[in-house]
């Protein structure tokens, strides 16, 4: 071995995408200082302060708390109240409705740590939700606590913080059911060592799942019953959605160190309008029916179309976000199935975009991309 492996330990400041608790450390600290309400055991903030953190407010000392979740206050309140009752929280919604986003910020606000994460995939094994072994050590020393490799869930239990499970329904059913004991007994026995890890106060699970995909493993009713379910809606109004997109694009731009491009509000509005109209199958003025494509066209996709466009504008364009910069991205988002969605998109362009005032450039740009 002559070459040394690159260091695994990384510098948080250089991280491509810092964790929520890193990005908003200042806000969390200010809230903790101002928060004089009772905190549930193991919580870094009181439920009230967690809601304020998520929905945004201005504190008495003038600290501005940015809104993290733009949408119904009710959704956030139910989520926080659920965590406070030590019931597990299941966030459901079509892709791109900020499930993961909300779960990350909830974990950051409640336990100051959003990193105890299990990503559910078809290949997720039981070790990922329970515990595994360091086999070298296991062979050398026999079963011992030192040879035990705890899963994020086990770590969360031991620390009394929030564990997160992404895409719960993508896990195989038997792995999902491994969570039942964790959630009902709040304990994880390690049979090999004859010990058990009892969850400390403050432990809880936030899981996300999407209800759009087929071929996923539905939760068994035994597991389902241990979750309070919150359905995240797509944004109610166009203004809300424009706000979400604008805010996120700005933050992402900062994180990725993209050259400063004034994110034109017209382009954002346009992308949001296109997405909303295609999603609902009718134009905003309720005048024309349009076909809906097979994709979900979530807000998250709108955000990525805009960031993509900004990168194009910065590196190849004139530094301003122009219709041509979003055209390719928007077509990529809409046309998932080449044949059927292609027809939908062309029809939309010809019947809606073409005649709309001020959309001439956009229409031409899209035609060019499509040609």
């Amino acid at each position, binding site marked *: 071995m002559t070459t040394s492996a690159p260091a695994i330990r990384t510098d948080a400041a250089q991280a491509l995408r810092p964790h929520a608790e890193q990005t908003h450390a200042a806000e969390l600290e200010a809230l903790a200082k101002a928060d004089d309400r009772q905190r549930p055991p193991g919580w870094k903030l009181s439920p009230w302060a967690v809601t304020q953190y998520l929905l945004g407010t201005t504190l008495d000392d003038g600290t501005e708390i940015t809104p993290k979740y733009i949408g119904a206050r009710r959704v956030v309140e139910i989520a926080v109240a659920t965590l406070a*009752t030590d019931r597990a929280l*299941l966030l459901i919604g079509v892709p791109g409705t900020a499930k993961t986003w909300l779960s990350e910020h909830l974990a950051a606000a409640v336990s100051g740590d959003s990193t105890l994460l299990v990503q559910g995939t078809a290949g997720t094994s039981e070790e990922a939700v329970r515990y595994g072994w360091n086999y070298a050590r296991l062979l050398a020393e026999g079963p011992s606590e030192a040879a035990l490799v705890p899963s994020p869930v086990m770590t969360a239990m031991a620390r009394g913080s929030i564990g997160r499970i992404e895409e719960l329904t993508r896990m195989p059913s038997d792995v999902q059911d491994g969570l039942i004991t964790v959630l009902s007994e709040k304990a994880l026995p390690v049979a090999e060592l004859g010990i058990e890890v009892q969850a400390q106060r403050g432990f809880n699970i936030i899981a996300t799942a999407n209800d759009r995909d087929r071929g996923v493993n539905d939760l068994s009713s035994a597991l389902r019953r241990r979750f309070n*379910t919150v359905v995240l809606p797509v944004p109610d109004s166009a203004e809300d959605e424009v706000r979400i997109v604008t805010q996120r694009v700005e933050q992402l731009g900062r994180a990725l160190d993209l050259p400063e491009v004034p994110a034109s509000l017209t382009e954002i509005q346009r992308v949001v309008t296109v997405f909303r109209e295609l999603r609902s199958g009718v134009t905003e003025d309720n005048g024309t029916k349009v076909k809906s494509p097979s994709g979900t066209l979530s807000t998250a996709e709108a955000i990525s179309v805009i960031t993509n466009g900004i990168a194009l504008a910065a590196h190849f364009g004139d530094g301003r976000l122009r219709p041509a910069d979003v055209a390719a991205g928007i077509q990529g988002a809409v046309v998932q199935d080449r044949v059927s969605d292609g027809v939908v998109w062309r029809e939309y362009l010809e019947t809606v975009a073409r005649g709309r005032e001020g959309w001439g450039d956009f229409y031409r740009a899209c035609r060019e991309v499509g040609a």
Partner: protein
Amino acid sequence: MARSRLDTSGLHVLGVRHHGPGSARAVRAALEEIKPEAVLIEGPPEADALTSLVGELEPPVALLAYAAEKEGPRRDAGEGWAFWPFASFSPEWEALRYAVGHGVPVRFCDLPAAHTLAERMAAAEERRQREEDPDAAGEAPEAEEPERVRLDPLGVLAEAAGYDDAERWWDDVVEQRGPGEPSPFPAIADAMAAVRAESAPESGREARREAYMRQTLRAVLREGHQRVAVVCGAWHAPALRDVADHPVKDDTALLRGLPKVRVNTTWVPWTHGRLAAASGYGAGVAAPGWYHHLFTAPDLPVHRWLTDAARLLREEGQPVSSSHVIEGVRLAESLAVLRGRPLAGLDEVSEALTSVLCEGEPARAALVHRRMALGERMGAVPPSTPMVPLQRDLVAAQKRLRLKPEPFDRDLDLDLRKENDRERGVLLHRLRMLDVPWGVPGPSAGGSKGTFRESWRLRWEPEMDVALIEASRWGTTVASAAAARAADLAAEADLPALTSLTERCLLADLGEALPRVLALLTDRAATDSDVTHLMAALPPLARSARYGDVRGTDGTRLRQVGEQLLRRVCVGLAPAVHGLDDEAAAEFVRHVDATHNAATLLGGEVLADWTAALASLARRDAVPGRIAGRVNRMLADGGLLEPAELRGRLGLAMSPGAEPAGAAAWLEGFLQGSGLILVHDEALLGLIDTWLLALPEERFTAVLPLLRRTFGNFTGPERTEIGAAAQRLGSAPAAAPGAPVRADADTERAAPALATALAILTSGRSLG
């Protein structure tokens, strides 16, 4: 004595929130503490005599006041009456129950309904005049929008205290009092006085109402009662509490010379749905079911509510366990804490229902939630309640036929062969005649009249009591009133309306009204010169004449009228078809078809007349091709036209001299419905074939669309068969290989089956 200041030391004014369970509880507690000698309640004083019934009523009920005179200005829906609804959780209802239960004299003290209704009717009259005479609408109608503060003063106070729900604020300030604390009502009155001081003094109707309330209050106080309790809207509390500060003469002046009508009052059953409706007579109570629950649940309202929801979900087949309920209650309570509320409210339980009990399925949760929040129920009134005779008759009929008025949709299938079911159907039809749409006929009752089944959808609305009272001018029993109404309707109806009225009379079994309606029908038929009107009127009559068999009504008279009508049609038929264009001809053909069916139903002599008329029509020239074709086909189908004769006529119509467009129209009429005749009669097909082949090219293209329309209407197999037949025409007829071989039928053996089929098709009357 005359100038002595009123002694108000024993006066307790309880300002409440209408239909607030919190207020109701507080009123009850306050009354038990005060032990009043007289109770005054906001409501129409005409109903004083009805308070004795309170013990037997089952809420929700409403006081109904309606103008008594039958004649007078024309009334539209909603102006000649008014309702005062009471739910079990209404404070006024609590006060009534207390007073009646303890034998305390109780009086209503609001402005009499006599004035209210008179004003309202005058206003409606004025509005109508303005509409009829738009020039007079110069000055804009004065805005009677009361400001919000007056509509919901408690809401304003709650908002000032930082609450978004007045009932919740009220619960906190009124309900959460420790024992021994003073009654909240003095504080309420003070608060209202403060709110009122900010806004302009009362004027107009509100001022008159308060003046009248004070007058009643003075009278009661002067009667010498020591302790008097007044239950009124919180807004009025200061005006009544400080009764001594208001000069009597001002109030008398305010009340002088008010318009007046004679008014009757009674109790009617009410529904939670009506309470919830924000418009009309609804009280705008958002969730009467929840309020009712809050008021009736002895303790743990949230626990009980979610348990009930779980039971409902289980009834719907959803697996909901007790642990769901436990966690639901926990979520609701922690949500309430998070929101800084002392008790979980409707919002919290609804969210717990969605997130826990329904596992995030909003649609299922919404269904259960809506049902429970409304908590549909209907009140009841005892038989001793004042009713108009018509209502009594209906109540008796409902009892006899075991049909209960219910506030939700219920489907009812009636088998008209059963006596009881038949009478039910008749009752519902009669009520419809009286504009009381308790039952709405289902689709099967509308379409197939010959059936012995009738399906209805029943739903009783409280307004129907009003409709009944309105209808009571027609008669004292449902039957006589419906008959009178039918006769009245008939007087102004035109011919088609009369025939449908005839049908309705038959359905409603209105034997008394029928002769008059039929007499009018024959009169109208005599004067109506439009044959299509007559033809349109005939089918329902013919159906009714036959329908009579099922319902046991006498069809003879109907038959006479039907026959008379048909004879008129026969006479007018030939002149009517003259000069019709293609579209009108198509319409006329439909009428001819319908009339033909009707004539077949009537049968007998008139049928012969009708076919004779058709036959003469078929022979005439100058009949539009479409009609001529169709009539010939009808005659041929009826076996009244020899095949040879038919071929001759077809040949004439298709002859080279005739206009091809006309020929094509003839063909269209002839082949309307079915082209199979061409398969069976090769000679006909041959004639058409020859005609087609002989057409010059430009003429052929001219008639092609018409032909396409004709043949396009046939079913696929039919077209295939005609095509095959046309192919056979070209080849040698005998040696056509592959042509379908028709099996020879044994006519002797087939004869009984044919006869039976004929009997079925013609319902025993052969086509004669």
